[in-house]
């Protein structure tokens, strides 16, 4: 059955491997994926440990619906204490790894200690071996996967791996599967690198028994229709996620030149339609009908002829908007480099854009850059800095430390120009005109982020009746809701609701593009309850699934508080409040976030969570969710 997958504990220091079943009681509390990983993290990571030391623990998992008949049940989660922020580390990626992990008999992998020499894990139909990684240490993300497949003699093996950046402990190194599926944020690649763990290879042929197969198939037919009949899915299948960047840039809601401007003007060459012309086709993840992944061959320059996949809208931000560049070729090259080095594109682009502003302001000099004219719009300097960060060369070695540590090393006024929350750089959007999105950025549990809480549909101008139908279930809500994205009222509830939405699908293992993230008509709690029952037999109501998400989110909060997080961390840098937007359409220009209103938003957001005025979960909130005795060490 779908619930008989095990949890494996691997100690890289001793070589011990243990396996345990996952009790049904814990399944009902946390389901799987990110939710159960968060429970494990809170239980297995001791407070105050060095994120890059042997005491940190890595958690890799599939969602509870991974590899079943549920559409887009492809997602892999990876967690641990973040080397970037010191708070929760957590990242999620698509592709084919998680289903393979389940077919190999496992839902969760817990990795402790540190291997004496470079190693990788080989997980094959219920068995786990620690193997020598001498032949792949130093190899790119793409080559590593190929070498492992050849070494083990099976081309269907799926590999999760780090690149050079992870080996070099770049604090925003990611983990990758396939060509472009990245667990990007919070530095999980550095965590693997610190353990001398290059990769995890999996292969499985163990069937997952679907509990009610005919009903599961029939219900998924409905889900497929629901997804493919939404315009947003069709647009994504045609243009990929770059359509979002294009539409948003048209408005003036894109972060440009670090955070000095809010629109990339004269950007025709990097608009989604221009990138579409360079794409050689589209691809999809396991069980997905949207197919939002572009395939491309770099058209010109030193990398001409190289094949890769993407770019996502995040690479448009990283290699166009933020550094002020306007070349499609540069985006494709930058995207390729972060893919092979295993770097988070968002953090990479942000760090370089920040360094460019420091250079133009004279805080960094040409001596600091070893002769590189690190100015906005300098494509060659941008690409060169990607190499230097991955290899930790010169200034790249400083930037590889991430925002706060780099600012401390550079000194002067450099911290004033950092655009970050909780020590994680913001993504490529500008939220000064959109308080709901600003609140999501400020309060995201892993730092500035769009994938933990963003109420993206707030920008759509949906009728209030539509918003009401979405945001008043499974938990009743009769407070204010507004179709106007400039408003402050009602937005804290939208952020709170989206947090639960994203946490829930991260427990289920379903892609967010199949949810109320970009499409108001896409599946939500009601549908997930049905999918869960037909595929696994677990009977959880939509409200039960909400409570699973709430439980996991509170565990994340508890973890962060234990590591020193306070209300001050749920805040934005001064530029959001003090420097008005300059470009864009008329109703976007001249916008800042109002400090007092924003404080009240945070108060309201805490109230919706059942947290006190300092953002600490109230005892009654924890009791209601049954987590008042955590860490309980049940697993």
């Amino acid at each position, binding site marked *: 059955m779908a619930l008989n997958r095990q949890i494996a504990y691997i100690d890289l220091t001793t070589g011990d491997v243990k396996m345990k079943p996952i009790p049904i009681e814990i399944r009902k509390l946390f389901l799987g994926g990110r939710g159960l990983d968060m429970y494990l993290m809170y239980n297995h990571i001791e407070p105050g440990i060095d994120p890059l030391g042997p005491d940190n623990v890595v958690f890799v998992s599939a969602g509870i619906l991974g590899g079943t008949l549920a559409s887009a049940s492809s997602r892999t989660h990876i967690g641990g204490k973040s080397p970037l922020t010191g708070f929760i580390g957590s990242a999620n990626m698509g592709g084919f790894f998680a289903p393979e992990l389940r077919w190999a008999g496992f839902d969760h992998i817990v990795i402790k200690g540190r291997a004496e020499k470079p190693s990788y894990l080989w997980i094959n139909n219920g068995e786990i071996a620690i193997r020598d990684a001498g032949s792949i240490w130093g190899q790119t993300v793409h080559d590593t996967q190929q070498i492992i497949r050849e070494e083990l003699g099976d081309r269907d093996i799926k590999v999760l791996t780090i690149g050079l950046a992870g080996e070099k402990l770049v604090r925003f190194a990611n983990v990758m599967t396939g060509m472009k599926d990245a667990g990007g944020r919070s530095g999980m690649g550095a965590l693997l690198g610190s353990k001398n763990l290059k990769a995890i290879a999996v292969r499985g042929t163990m069937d997952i028994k679907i509990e009610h197969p005919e009903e599961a198939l029939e219900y998924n037919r409905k889900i497929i229709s629901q997804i493919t*009949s*939404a*315009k*947003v899915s069709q*647009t994504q299948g*045609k*243009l990929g*996620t770059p*359509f*979002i*960047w*294009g*539409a*948003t840039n*048209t*408005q003036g*809601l894109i972060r440009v030149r670090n955070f000095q401007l809010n629109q990339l003007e004269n950007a025709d060459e990097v608009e*989604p339609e221009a990138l579409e012309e360079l794409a050689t086709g589209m691809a999809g993840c396991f069980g997905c009908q949207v197919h939002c992944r572009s395939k491309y061959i770099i058209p010109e320059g030193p990398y001409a002829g190289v094949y890769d996949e993407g770019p996502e*809208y*995040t690479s448009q*931000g990283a290699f166009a908007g933020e550094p002020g560049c306007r070349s499609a070729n540069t985006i494709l090259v930058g995207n390729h480099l972060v893919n092979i080095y295993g770097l988070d594109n968002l953090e990479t682009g942000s760090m370089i854009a920040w360094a460019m502003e420091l250079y133009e302001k004279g805080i960094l000099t040409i001596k600091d850059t070893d002769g590189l004219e690190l100015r906005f719009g300098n494509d060659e300097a941008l690409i060169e800095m990607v190499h230097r960060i991955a290899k930790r060369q010169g200034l790249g070695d400083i930037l590889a430390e991430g925002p706060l540590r780099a600012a401390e090393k550079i000194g002067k006024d450099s911290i004033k120009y950092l655009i970050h929350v909780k020590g994680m750089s913001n*993504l*490529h*959007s500008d*939220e000064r005109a*959109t308080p709901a*999105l600003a609140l999501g950025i400020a309060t995201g549990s892993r730092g500035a982020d*769009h994938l933990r809480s*963003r109420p*993206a*549909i707030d*920008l*759509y*101008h*949906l*009728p209030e*009746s*539509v918003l009401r*139908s979405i945001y008043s279930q499974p938990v009743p809500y009769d407070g204010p809701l507004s*179709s*106007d*994205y*400039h408003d402050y009222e009602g937005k804290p509830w939208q952020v709170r609701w989206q947090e639960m939405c994203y946490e829930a699908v991260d427990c289920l293992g379903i892609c967010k593009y199949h949810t109320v993230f*970009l499409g*108001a*008509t896409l599946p939500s709690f009601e549908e997930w309850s049905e999918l869960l029952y037909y595929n696994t037999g677990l009977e959880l109501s939509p409200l039960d699934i909400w409570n699973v998400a709430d439980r996991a989110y509170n565990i994340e909060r508890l973890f962060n508080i234990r590591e020193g997080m306070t209300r001050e961390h749920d805040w934005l840098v001064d530029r959001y409040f003090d420097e008005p937007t300059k470009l864009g*359409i*008329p*109703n*976007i220009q001249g916008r800042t976030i109002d400090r007092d209103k924003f404080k009240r938003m945070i108060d309201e957001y805490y109230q919706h969570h059942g947290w006190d005025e300092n953002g600490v979960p109230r005892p009654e909130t924890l009791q209601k969710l049954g987590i008042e005795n955590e860490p309980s060490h049940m697993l």
Partner: protein
Amino acid sequence: MGISINIHPSLRHLTNEQEVVQTSGSTVGQCLEQLVAQFPDIKEGLFAKDGKLLDYVTVYVNGESAYPEELAKSVHDGDELYIVMMIAGG
């Protein structure tokens, strides 16, 4: 009575800041044609060169998405249209 079109905030500078514009017609397309007739500059914010709605623009009719019929979708007197733009913030 007519058919009202709620204008997306990012397009209101093209409708003299009018939030709601009254039109008439028997399809979404006809109503939008009337909107463009009143405010010609809004056309570029709604339509691609091939005459279809832009990839990130869609219309809701009485709280329901008009997609996939979109411009061909029938409307009636008293209906309320919303111009929805999938900006998404990324």
